[in-house]
């Protein structure tokens, strides 16, 4: 009796859920269809398939894992894979998109068990680790055979793809940090909107002029804060001639140049004080987007992706893009995604995966990727396409690739940089002493290297 009612309720809820989906039947079909073009591997092999150069035209099915699960890049990926299949009818691609945050769990588990995809989007900073263990294949032979010109790609990225002189994959896209500044606020403060700050001193002076306090002693506008956006200690230290590892692979975390950078950050941050800053932060966090877009920060160092966000959220914002102000040498920080051939011990699938890799990193496709996502693609022919370079902001972003660096890959401490963020926060938010905290970080790094040495 009572149970019957419960069953009815359950059924009703199931039907409600089903009913809601029913009205979207059409597009469902689309989504499912395009997400697995693998449906009929037989069909593709039939007929007058033009022999695909590398794979000898034999039908082959490969898997490609990536992070595009929503929005423009998902649609573009579906489109690109369909185009690729039309060009190479014998190659069927089974794609799998997992969102950025969960992708690494998925990929690392699968690769650890030797059941990874044939082609994987992966982290450019850690190529060496996988090359060393033989988890991924060198692409040198393919690159030479097909005459792919590596000079077309940003040198810093090509450099990162190499292990013991050999290429392991191809760079896909990257990012770079730049200074964004609000031109209108510059004008209001009597600064020249065409002269962004070049060095630390100017940055500090401008920040002072641009900061606006209200009568409650709270911050309406922050001129510049190293705690906002995406300026990390190592990036600023690099602009001061600092470094965290020497040529022999020994840590140099407490090098004077690094300490200076952290001291400078602290000096700037202390002007705002913990109370005003935390009030500012709680407001800024509620925005759901950058305080620079909201006109709450006059200058900010952030990833090039912020440019894309400004274009969609605040197209009327009067702003400029400039190199990160430096003290001794211009520098910036890049990270990125590459494409890798996972070693599945199947030369035929590897060859087919290479075809897809070559296609995805070709200038024509990379232009489309940039248009869909605004990302800084690795192929310079695409990133520096004249129609993109007309935009002075974009040109400025691309130009930073000349001075931009990657995190050093240190086998003993692959994520050494993530250990520095808490140090920076402790100094900026809790008033800890820069020297003391970097000394501590140095000791930790020395221990990590020593412990690693024992395991070798």
């Amino acid at each position: 009796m009572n149970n019957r009612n419960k069953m009815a309720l359950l059924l009703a809820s199931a039907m409600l859920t089903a009913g809601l989906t029913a009205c979207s039947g059409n597009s469902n079909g689309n989504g499912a269809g395009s997400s697995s073009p693998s449906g009929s591997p037989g069909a593709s092999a039939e007929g007058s398939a033009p022999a695909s150069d590398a794979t000898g035209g034999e039908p082959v099915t490969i898997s490609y894992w990536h992070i595009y699960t929503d929005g423009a890049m998902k649609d573009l990926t579906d489109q690109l894979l369909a185009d690729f299949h039309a060009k190479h009818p014998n190659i069927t691609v089974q794609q799998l998109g997992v969102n950025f945050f969960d992708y690494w769990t998925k990929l690392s588990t699968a690769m650890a068990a030797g059941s990874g995809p044939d082609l994987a989007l992966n982290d450019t900073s850690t190529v060496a680790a996988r090359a060393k263990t033989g988890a991924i294949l060198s692409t040198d032979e393919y690159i030479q055979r097909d005459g792919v010109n590596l000079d077309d790609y940003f040198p810093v990225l090509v450099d990162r793809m190499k292990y013991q002189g050999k290429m392991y994959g191809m760079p896909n896209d990257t990012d770079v940090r730049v200074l964004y500044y609000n031109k209108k606020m510059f004008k209001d403060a009597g600064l020249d909107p065409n002269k962004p700050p070049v060095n630390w001193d100017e940055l500090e002076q401008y920040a002072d002029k641009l900061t606006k306090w209200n009568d409650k002693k709270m911050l309406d506008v922050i001129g510049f804060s190293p705690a906002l956006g995406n300026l990390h200690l190592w990036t600023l230290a690099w602009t001061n001639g600092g470094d965290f590892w020497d040529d022999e692979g020994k840590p140099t975390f407490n090098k004077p140049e690094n300490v200076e950078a952290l001291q400078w950050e602290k000096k700037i941050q202390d002007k705002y004080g913990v109370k005003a800053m935390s009030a500012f932060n709680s407001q800024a966090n509620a925005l759901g987007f950058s305080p620079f877009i909201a006109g709450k920060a006059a200058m900010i160092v952030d990833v090039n992706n912020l440019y894309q966000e400004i274009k969609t959220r605040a197209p009327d914002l009067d702003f400029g893009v400039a190199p990160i102000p430096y003290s001794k040498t211009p520098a910036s920080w890049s990270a990125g995604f590459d494409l890798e051939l996972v070693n599945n011990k199947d030369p035929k699938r590897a060859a087919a995966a290479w075809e897809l890799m070559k296609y995805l990193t070709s200038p024509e496709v990379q232009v489309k990727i940039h248009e869909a996502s605004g990302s800084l693609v690795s192929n310079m022919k695409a990133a520096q396409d004249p129609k993109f370079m007309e935009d002075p902001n974009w040109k400025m972003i691309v130009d930073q690739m000349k001075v931009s660096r990657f995190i050093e890959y240190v086998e003993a401490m692959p994520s050494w940089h993530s250990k520095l963020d808490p140090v920076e926060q402790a100094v900026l938010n809790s008033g800890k002493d820069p020297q003391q905290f970097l000394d501590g970080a140095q000791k930790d790094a020395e221990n990590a290297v020593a412990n690693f040495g024992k395991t070798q």
Partner: protein
Amino acid sequence: MALRSNALFHRIAVYALLLLGSAAFILPLVWLLSTSLKGDTGLFDIPPKWIPDPFHWDNYKKAVQSFPFLRYTWNTVFITVMCMIGSMLSSSFVAYAFARLRWPGRDVWFVVLLATMMLPSQVTMIPLFILFKELGWVNTYLPLIVPFFFGSAFYIFLMRQFFMTIPKELSEAAKIDGCTEVYTWWKIFMPLSKPALATLGIFTFTLVWNDFQGPLIYLNDPNKFTLMLGLRSFQQQYGTRWNVMMAASLLVMLPTLVLFFSFQRYFIEGVTLTGVKG
């Protein structure tokens, strides 16, 4: 008189506390509903706007169109039902042996069993994955379902505690009538344990329905995905469509909500039975 007004005051205080508690629990749900009906801007406004203007019902349309919703629902229902059957059968079966049979080392094995609850799933993740890969089960539902047919420590514990409360006379009478142990379990203990079984079923349902990591690592074919994987697809490296994600979340939550309200009694019994929240 004084006593009565005192009692009244007492009741008001209790109700006020209860109201406050329920408000705290209902607030996230209301927020979920509110966000799911908002447009693309103003999601994080302070002070928050509780009632969106206008209502963006199209978020629900977008939600079910962003991934094959019906297919994922079916996949999830299938896995969940199989797991519920598996855990109810296997856990109660093993629990019967722990509760009613006398065999050497029983109590030691029971402790060993309980000790397995202390192993975090992250520790066993890669070895288990390799095991299932060697079996050729990756990209099938088997790694998600089969383990439930082999019992799990917590459920066995739960069923054992319940079986211990069933009078011995019942199983002894059955034995005298020539009933085998398996038959006793199936014909006498199972029917008497409906509340415990319901609790177990509900616990399994919520666990499997909401499981994310298992499907994430074992399934490669997007057509085999579950709702939880679909939900996460709205989150991107730069930015998330929160409103659409909340709309999808609400749809995914509905069965759990309905289940909770219809079987509330068993949820609470489950808590009192084990002293552990599901």
